């Protein structure tokens, strides 16, 4: 985990420094003289050699400092923190929706394998993986926000809006992300349940006359949980990526939006910081899932 994280840091640094185009030149505009550029480069430490810049960056990183945004005039950590709420709430809501759709559909699909309902759900799972989220977002927005007026078209409410009002703004984007990402959960739940349903202990449970719901939910699902938990964790990571697109469609002031505007402005520290934080979240989530295995399946121990 630490090795992967350090490699992530190196990659992030290499990535942003491989860029053609000088952010300082862009920042200062056409009027800037060579001296102006050199002066500002010195302020941001961009005049030093690459290894020196990297060492400096790592040192600051160890202090929890991601540097200052070149354009927003504030530390990257603060810029990220200010944008964290919509993205976090959006991802959590979307994971909840994806799980609530994915697990029951997958279980039903496996139990009624080969029947019409199974084909319907597996077909839906296949379709979900082929629908572009921005398109689905626009279509839902047209129907539920523009035509029916049930939800705000875009934005995150007025400044200082109540939590309920903000959540109201998140319903459509979270539905988009949740519905599309439930596809993966359906497929994994179904596959995992199918493996388990053939096991002897399921036959035993049936043989001793337990009701079918108890067989499926207590004996089968309980044992099929490890892959399902894994894929739900994976979905959390996918959400953060998917949020970038969805936030833009619905005009939410989240981390995704921040990254897209940073990219168009070549604001390296923000791009670096965001990539690093998101990758760290991914690694941490994966680690937590590994720990969760011991709860889900007592046979696993570390």
């Amino acid at each position, binding site marked *: 985990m630490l090795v992967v994280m350090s490699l992530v840091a190196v990659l992030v640094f290499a990535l942003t420094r491989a860029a053609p185009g000088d952010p300082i030149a862009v920042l200062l505009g056409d009027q800037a003289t060579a001296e102006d550029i050199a002066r500002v480069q010195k302020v941001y430490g961009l005049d030093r050699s690459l290894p020196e810049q990297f060492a400096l960056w790592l040192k600051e990183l160890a202090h929890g400092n991601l540097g200052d945004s070149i354009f927003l005039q504030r530390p990257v950590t603060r810029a990220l923190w200010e944008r964290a709420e919509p993205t976090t709430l959006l991802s959590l809501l979307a994971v909840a929706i994806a799980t609530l759709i994915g697990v029951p559909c997958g279980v039903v699909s496996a139990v009624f394998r080969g029947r019409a309902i199974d084909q319907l759900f597996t077909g839906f799972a296949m379709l979900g993986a082929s629908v572009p989220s921005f398109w689905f977002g626009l279509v839902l927005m047209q129907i539920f926000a523009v035509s029916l007026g049930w939800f705000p078209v875009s934005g995150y409410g007025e400044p200082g809006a109540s939590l309920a009002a903000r959540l109201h703004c998140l319903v459509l984007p979270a539905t988009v992300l949740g519905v599309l990402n439930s596809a993966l959960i359906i497929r994994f739940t179904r596959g995992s349940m199918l493996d388990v349903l053939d096991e002897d202990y399921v036959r035993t449970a049936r043989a001793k006359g337990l009701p079918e719901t108890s067989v499926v939910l207590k004996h089968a699902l309980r044992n099929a949980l490890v892959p399902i938990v894994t894929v739900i964790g994976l979905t959390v990571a996918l959400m953060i990526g998917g949020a970038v697109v969805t936030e833009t469609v619905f005009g939410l002031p989240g981390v995704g939006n921040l*990254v897209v505007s940073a990219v168009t402005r070549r604001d390296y520290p923000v791009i670096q910081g965001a990539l690093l934080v998101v990758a760290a979240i991914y690694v941490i989530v994966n680690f937590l899932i590994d720990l969760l295995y011991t709860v889900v399946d007592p046979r696993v121990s570390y």
Partner: protein
Amino acid sequence: MPLVVRKLFRRRIVLAAAIALAIVVLVATFAGTISGQDPNETAVAQRLAQPSLAHWLGTDELGRDLFARIAFGGRYSLIIAALTALGAVAAGTLLGLTAGFFRRLDAPLMRVVDAMMSFPDILLAIALVGILGASMLNVVLALVLVYTPRVARVVRASTLVVRELTFVEAARAIGGSNARILSRHILPNLVSPITVQGSFIFAYAILAEAALSFLGVGVPPEMPTWGTMVAGSQAYAHQALWIVLFPGLAIIFTALSLQLLGDGIRDLLDPRLRKSM
């Protein structure tokens, strides 16, 4: 027709997917002849016209024929996705073979792959295109970098299995060099998993390119791809939903066909999996 292909198409859904894909490619290739319209000809008098005989899928905000634009846009979307799939498969295969075959390189290479895969696909692609600059070639380059680790993982896993098989041992016993064993004995046994990955990445790349272009960090906006079409027309969606609807349906149609085809090939490879999809 070779037996494998016949077996693959015995499942009707896979055959349907292959035919659908062939239609998409044909329409994109012969875009001008089929539509009989110029995708860039504007006719403001006919802007946002509903689908009709003259304009099969209606017209966009500048009166351009939507069918012609989707057909021509398909060229770019398909070329970008195809190049991405080819590039990622080539680079990923090389990386995966190396990691799987030369044990000493395995751990370092795979940790880099793990690190690359800790970034969400779209986020990494956005950052890469942002850094490289928005152009068609850079979009391909960025997506190749994003999807190479995926291929590398699969190829490495398969290489680890194949390298222990007896025919590899036999090849080494008669003095075959590493290069010969890799290219003549191991690689041919990896063709199927690589094909499956290739078709999935083709589908992902269609979706990813569209998302990048939609966000304005993909191909230049004046280049008609399915993503830029949706981005350019979204402001008019409340007047004429079809200008957003149809490019999206083109994306879904193509991506779905590719995934069904990939699934078909995978099932053929591994009959045990057939029950699960």
